[in-house]
């Protein structure tokens, strides 16, 4: 008998050295286990910090861009020798020459043909377009001298930002020693200025990193999400209302429920295949269009909205329904007059989270041709368009170093939108959530 064994000993079992040792081991195990948990959370949070930190560290410089202040002579002989001021003639003129002339006058030793070209390469190819646009907007500039700010090429920009080391041997960088000397000369004069990069928001896509902007992607995202919103919200709320308030318990509603739960976990790329096979090939809708993208994303976020909607409808206590029924309201009136308004904040939270999900989605859009090189912002629902995440995907694929910076900046813009949307959802929940 145990009692006998215990009483045989001089000291009770809980005072033996063995017991102490065992207890210490158990406490050590306890402490270790706890540390594992903390380490796991620390690892996850650390990864989040590294992820966000690396994006910000790579991308924050893209919000500034270097421009070269240059006194340009709008030479009539070069732009419009006949003096017609005909827009067609103005559009044809070679504005590169103007920029090169201006550069030649400020740089030492830039007279030869070869040197002129090398000096011209300091500027972005977009510089000539900008000069052209200035002249076409205001032909009276012709014949005058103006100090204008022109974008420098992405290689120069990267060098000035310190992303490319000046100490590299000439063979390893794209800027030649001669160009480097010029850059230092211009820097010393204070003609190279760093400005907030408005082109990032006002330009469409471009092969030249210094000219590439997000406008087309932002507008495309906006149009697509509008379609998604218009389709997914009414349908989602209606489905949630039916399933939660009206549906009899039968095979059909069971089937619908199982379907919704499964659709929520179907890989998003499969929705892209659906869009390709059904909307593009069967219904013959246009490729790359926000309309199709919006429909596909609506199907994608519908389960999220339905599930969130049902949860918040379920949270409305039955007493509300019973009271309304008791004074003679029909079941539909109960829902539209009482239950739905009370559940609305919760439903809207679900809608916003679903929309944030749709905004960040990329894979299905690749299938329906929204990976397109879009320079002009789309103006309608059937124009070719791209979306912000797809723009990020395409920029990430570009080899130029400057595009890495741009991609990170685009990610920051995308995350900014997502944070704003989620913050709105949190505020909605905090402000209007009711505890019954």
């Amino acid at each position: 008998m145990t009692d006998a064994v215990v009483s045989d000993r001089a000291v009770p079992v809980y005072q033996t050295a063995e017991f102490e040792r065992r207890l210490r081991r158990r406490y050590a195990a306890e402490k270790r286990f706890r540390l594992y948990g903390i380490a796991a959370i620390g690892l996850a949070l650390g990864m989040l910090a590294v992820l966000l930190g690396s994006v910000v560290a790579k991308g924050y410089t893209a919000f500034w861009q270097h421009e070269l202040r240059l006194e340009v002579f709008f030479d009539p002989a070069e732009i419009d020798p006949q003096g017609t001021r005909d827009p067609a003639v103005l559009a044809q003129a070679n504005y590169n020459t103007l920029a090169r002339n201006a550069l030649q006058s400020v740089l030492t030793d830039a007279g030869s043909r070869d040197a002129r070209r090398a000096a011209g390469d300091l500027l972005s190819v977009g510089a000539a377009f900008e000069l052209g646009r200035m002249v076409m907007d205001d032909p009276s500039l012709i014949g005058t001298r103006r100090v204008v700010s022109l974008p420098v090429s992405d290689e120069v920009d990267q060098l000035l930002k310190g992303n490319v080391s000046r100490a590299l041997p000439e063979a390893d960088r794209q800027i030649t020693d001669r160009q480097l000397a010029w850059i230092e000369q211009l820097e010393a004069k204070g003609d190279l200025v760093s400005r907030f990069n408005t082109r990032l928001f006002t330009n469409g896509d471009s092969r030249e990193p210094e000219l590439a902007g997000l406008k087309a992607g932002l507008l495309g995202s906006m149009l697509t999400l509008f379609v998604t919103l218009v389709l997914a919200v009414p349908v989602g709320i209606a489905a949630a209302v039916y399933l939660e308030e009206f549906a009899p318990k039968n095979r059909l509603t069971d089937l619908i429920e199982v379907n919704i739960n499964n659709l929520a976990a179907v890989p998003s790329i499969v929705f892209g295949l659906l869009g390709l096979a059904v909307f593009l090939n069967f219904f013959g809708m246009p490729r790359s269009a926000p309309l199709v993208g919006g429909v596909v994303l609506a199907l994608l976020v519908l389960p999220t909205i339905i599930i969130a909607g049902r949860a918040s409808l379920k949270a409305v206590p039955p007493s509300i329904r019973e009271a309304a029924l008791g004074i003679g309201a029909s079941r539909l009136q109960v829902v539209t007059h009482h239950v739905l308004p009370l559940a609305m904040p919760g439903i809207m939270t679900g809608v916003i989270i679903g929309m944030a999900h749709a905004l960040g989605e990329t894979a299905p859009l690749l299938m329906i041709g929204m990976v397109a090189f879009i320079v002009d912002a789309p103006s309608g629902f059937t124009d070719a368009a791209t979306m912000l995440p797809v723009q990020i995907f395409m920029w990430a694929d570009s080899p130029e170093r400057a595009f890495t910076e741009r991609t990170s900046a685009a990610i920051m813009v995308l995350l900014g939108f997502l944070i704003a949307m989620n913050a709105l959802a949190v505020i909605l929940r905090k402000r209007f959530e009711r505890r019954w």
Partner: protein
Amino acid sequence: MPMSVLVAVLVALSLAGFYMGRSRALDAAGGRMANLHSVPGYYGFYAAIWAGLPALLVIVVWSAFGGAVVNALVWSSLPADAVQGLSPSQQSLLMTNILNVAGGNAGAAETSPVVRAAAEYHQHLRGIGRWALAALAFSLAVGGLWYARSRITPSLRARNQVERVVQALLIMCSLVAILTTVGIVMSLLFEAIRFFGRVSPVEFLFGLHWSPQTAIRADQVGSSGAFGAVPLFAGTILISLIAMLVAVPVGLLAAVYMAEYAPPRVRATVKPVLEILAGIPTVVYGFFAALTMAPLIRDAGQAVGLNVASESALAAGVVMGIMIIPFVSSLSDDVINAVPQSLRDGAYGLGATRSETIKQVVLPAALPGIVGAVLLAVSRAIGETMIVVMAAGLAANLTANPLAAVTTVTVQIATLLVGDQEFDSAKTLSAFGLGLVLFTVTLCLNVIALRVVQKYREKYD
């Protein structure tokens, strides 16, 4: 008449119907509301529905199928000698030509007279179709309005009728979920069957060589293309396995700590911060994997003398694992919280420490739920696309080495379908075969996981 004008007219007619119905009902009641069966507004809705709904249905049906009908009519009008002996791809090319000319996208000068005639016929038919649609919709709307007006009497059960229509609308909206599933299954099956007509399913599922390049000329080297998908399955499994090796321990331990140890304040801040990981778009993870993680792993590998591919499975897998951590942790957190307190109290009463209680009581009790969560996470990993498209390779290597480059099912689907496609080549269709496999596998995982989780919930409820 453009569609927007037509819709605007219909909306205006419905609005008119609403006011007409309401005032008609009030008139019919002789100004005494009590004589009416329903509130006047319902009579308004009744008339508005009659004015708008039938016409709207006609418009929807026409926009869905009208184009196909017109195309079929144009096709049958083509002279027999122009169509004879054309292969399916030539047929679709001819039709595209006709449509382009009809849409004014191609210069009419360099096209054949047959195409030009067909294009003119197409434009003609479309014009007729548009006007017929407008006329039909308009007359339906006016007719509906007139019918509703004649029906409105004080005893008309307007509310019941309106509610029946609304009820039907609600049901239709919930059927969208079923329609989506049916659409997915049909589109995958239909194209996959066409694919399996060219490549045998056995070769597809068990073949060891994947190179979907089909030749342009028949005499080109390797013109047949090889569609053995085993390397893709192996690559998907390898990357998913790496992801789970990261996500399951970290996610599970984090969930345990959060559910059992963390004080409420810590829990309230850490949990939403962890959820941020789930809210970051996958394209961002892809960028991180390709430009930060992959070079890091490559350099680390080189430092210890290992040869690491720049698109290693390890980089993609680890980043995917990070993405899935919150998924595992929040699902397991729910499951652990659902374990009844009485089980813990029993263990504490026997003198167990907290960690012993967790390891020997809570986790075994929560195991089915955790397995369900892990299965859902696996299905997530298998279906994840952007990370692997950006960070994993394209070459189909059959290897279990995590430092080598492998490709996955989703990468192949994405690369096969981005860019120009011809829908009669095995190369394009193979993407749908892969999609079918992907859908089936993830569906099975999801169904099993949801079952397990549900069963488990019932057990403790």
